[in-house]
């Protein structure tokens, strides 16, 4: 069980448990605010006052991030002998049409996340643009999947519902309208 992928009904409640522990420790469950902390550490406060923050108050959150990195390392290297993700056959077919031949055989598509493809400028542009959109979007929206979809909606915050609908509108546009233009040949 530990070595296979976990079903949704185990994973979902465990993610809620993470939020519960953090709330009971007097903190919040939100991952994207760390991006701003990295800006502050990098000296962004010299350009904009917005990034002048008390770094000490963010220490706990950076520890959670460090933990997530370690957790990913442990799970990938010691508890996942076969990390291939068993997505549905229909999805595999769609991805193969787009040129993703690693669909169904890997954890991440090697066409985007193998070190070798970093030799192509297109990979850099796609990954960088994807990151920019996530970073800009999440700060503009004031939260990401953890802060809005889990924390915000759990607390019945209407703004979080607008944000989550936005997440899906953006995701659907990307996958259905833009992917064929970006990856289709």
């Amino acid at each position: 069980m530990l070595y296979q992928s976990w079903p949704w009904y185990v994973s979902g409640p465990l993610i809620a448990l993470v939020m519960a522990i953090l709330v009971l420790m007097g903190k919040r469950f939100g991952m994207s605010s760390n991006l701003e902390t990295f800006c502050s550490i990098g000296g962004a406060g010299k350009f904009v006052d917005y990034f002048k923050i008390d770094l000490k108050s963010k220490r706990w959150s950076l520890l959670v991030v460090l933990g997530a990195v370690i957790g990913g390392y442990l799970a990938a290297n010691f508890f996942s002998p076969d990390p291939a993700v068993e997505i549905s056959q229909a999805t595999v077919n769609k991805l193969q049409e787009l040129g993703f031949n690693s669909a169904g055989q890997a954890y991440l598509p090697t066409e985007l996340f193998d070190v070798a493809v970093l030799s192509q400028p297109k990979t850099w542009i796609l990954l960088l643009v994807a990151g920019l959109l996530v970073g800009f979007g999440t700060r503009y929206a004031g939260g990401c999947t953890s802060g809005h979809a889990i924390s915000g909606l759990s607390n019945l915050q209407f703004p979080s519902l607008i944000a989550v609908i936005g997440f899906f509108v953006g995701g659907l546009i990307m996958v259905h309208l833009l992917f064929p233009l970006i990856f289709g040949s």
Partner: protein
Amino acid sequence: MRSLAYLFVGIFFGFVLFKSEAASWFRIYEMFQFQSFHMYGIMGSALLVGMVFVQWVKKTKRKSLFGEKIILDKKERSFVRYAIGGTLFGLGWALAGACPGPMYVLAGAGFVPILVVLLGAVLGAFLYGLLRSKLPH
């Protein structure tokens, strides 16, 4: 001691995200194709348990483990920032196949190119800070 607790919560979180495959680009793509219940199940069940937990905290006026008052995040009222910010986030989420939490997890799992995404995300957050005063909120 508390520091260690935060670190362990993070390790647990990272472990769950990897094993649940919520950190897999393929699962995100599959979700936006509506071809599997997996991601909806994860978010739905997390939300259900989360709601019950938050209601319990509110009803019992639970104090934190350290005796402080628990303050639950209230999101300020607005439409435009959530709609535009959320949509931009969604575009990036689907392309990168990862939101901020999984990015850290994937970096730990050894996927070097995710560092380019992470760099972009930090730059994006910086860009937001620069333009913040000019954007409609």
